[in-house]
């Protein structure tokens, strides 16, 4: 039986990972994801599974590489600066075709920044933060329940494609508590005949590797990877559309920001303004086709992010010149407010203005492109 419990986002991700059959967790502390590391420290050893607080983030991601190569379900988690340190390891995981889950509970940057909520790691997550020509599925949950559900799904998807998967949350998602139904789950674990788990019955040795100096081999690998990435594009995209059918303006936002936008949408609708919402659940693969489709009917888009504008580039690639794209973002730990977003919507839809809005003595940053 499943039961509703009040869980912090970080704890819910930990519990979901355990139920998904995570064998090994390797981490290094950093706020605002510390509770996840602490949760795994408490519960993994109880179950006879592996928990290691590594000496650094780089060590942790390479432990993930080793455990995954041996056939284990492995994960690591961190926040902004720590995820930057893991980029080489993530690239190696893709190159060696190793499944893994990486969780980024994003904080304000650049640099050491602060511990406030942020979405400024979008480029790093979706556009290849590490070197080489690679992609990975990136989930951007908006509720604690969704964070738990997508954590479970992430392990399956990683195994299916033999590719790492990233869970991208912000500090609000990691820190807030919400009722969660942690569902019983039968891990869907495929055989891993490629793993280096020890030679048995005379089979040929397995090799886990991302290096070849032989001519054409790495190019061949890349063509094979491309086929996987194309399959992910076809199969793994997730998006939520709300009130898009009759919308005069569509908000585009993911994660916590999408919830702020959902509240704005309700307030706008109550005022008679036809506002809809498109929420990418996977930010890679990005829902280009869904946005392109909505741009056939709706002429105004407002992208809201906790950054200076990263996902907006993907919205532009979707919508092209078929609609005006407005942007409101707050960087470095700032959180967009319902009032500011509503103000911009009123300026666009009611007063037909463009440019910067000054209201109640403060300037709302608002650009149009």
């Amino acid at each position: 039986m499943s039961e509703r419990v009040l869980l912090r986002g970080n704890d819910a991700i930990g519990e979901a990972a355990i139920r998904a059959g995570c064998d090994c967790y390797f981490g290094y502390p950093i706020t605002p994801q510390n509770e996840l590391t602490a949760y795994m420290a408490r519960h993994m050893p109880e179950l006879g599974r592996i928990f290691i607080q590594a000496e650094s983030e780089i060590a942790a991601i390479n432990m993930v590489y080793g455990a995954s190569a041996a056939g284990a379900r492995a994960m690591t988690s961190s926040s902004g600066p720590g995820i930057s340190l893991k980029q080489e390891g993530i690239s190696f995981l893709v190159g060696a075709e190793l499944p893994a889950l990486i969780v980024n509970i994003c904080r304000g940057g650049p640099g050491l920044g602060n511990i406030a909520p942020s979405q400024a790691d979008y480029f790093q997550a979706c556009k290849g933060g590490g070197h080489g020509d690679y992609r990975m599925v990136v989930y951007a949950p908006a509720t604690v329940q969704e964070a738990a559900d997508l954590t479970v799904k992430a392990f399956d998807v990683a195994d299916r494609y033999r590719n790492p998967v990233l869970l991208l949350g912000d500090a609000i998602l990691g820190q807030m508590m919400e009722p969660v139904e942690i569902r019983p789950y039968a891990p869907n674990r495929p055989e891993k005949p490629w793993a280096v788990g020890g030679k048995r019955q005379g089979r040929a040795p397995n090799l886990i590797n991302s290096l070849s100096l032989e001519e054409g081999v790495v190019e061949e690998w890349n063509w094979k990877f491309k086929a996987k990435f194309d399959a992910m594009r076809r199969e793994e995209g997730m998006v939520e559309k709300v009130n898009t059918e009759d919308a005069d303006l569509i908000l585009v936002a993911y994660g916590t920001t999408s919830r702020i936008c959902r509240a704005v949408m309700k307030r706008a609708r109550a005022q008679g303004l036809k506002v809809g919402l498109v929420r990418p659940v996977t930010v890679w693969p990005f829902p280009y086709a869904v946005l392109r489709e909505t741009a056939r009917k709706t002429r105004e888009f407002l992208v809201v992010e906790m950054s200076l504008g990263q996902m907006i580039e993907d919205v532009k690639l979707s919508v092209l010149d078929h609609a005006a794209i407005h942007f409101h973002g707050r960087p470095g730990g700032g959180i967009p407010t319902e009032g500011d977003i509503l103000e911009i919507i009123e300026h666009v839809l009611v007063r037909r203005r463009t440019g910067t809005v000054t209201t109640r003595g403060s300037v709302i940053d608002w650009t149009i492109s």
Partner: protein
Amino acid sequence: MNHRCMFAGFGGQGILSMGSLLASSGMMAGLHTTFYPAYGIAMRGGNANCTVIVSDDEVASPVVSHPDLMVVMNETSFDFFQSWTAPGGWMFVNSSMTEKPVERNDVRPVYVQATRIATEVGDSRMANMAMLGAVIKVTGILPFDTVLTAMVKTCPAKILHLLEKNKQVFANGYAAL
């Protein structure tokens, strides 16, 4: 029904405990709820606050800029958060810790001698439960028994010996208004 609440005071006053107890109670009553703490740099004696939403509808944004139920447990929080309260909202003040009156005429002030009520039962650190009792009584967010049940169910093992006193303080806070 959609209550957007903020609890503020200094670390050690049980600010996060009272918020998470309200959130747990809301969940047990079958309502939608979110709890979001100020995190990371919290310490005993420093400032602590959290926001809780209790709603019969899905909670859209967990971020509260202007709570319609503000609870301030010390003078620093009173000074800082008075202007945050939404017009028409409640403002609960721990009047054991500040003698300042609410200066706004567009909010509903409620003064509770929370620390005194707690001290009478045994320990000033239970002032949070006295205040929560008063909040429940005045606003009627949730029934008295629901919160009491949640308190019993969520009480950490290490303070189980203080459960009965906390229940008493909660009841006294409820009865004080």
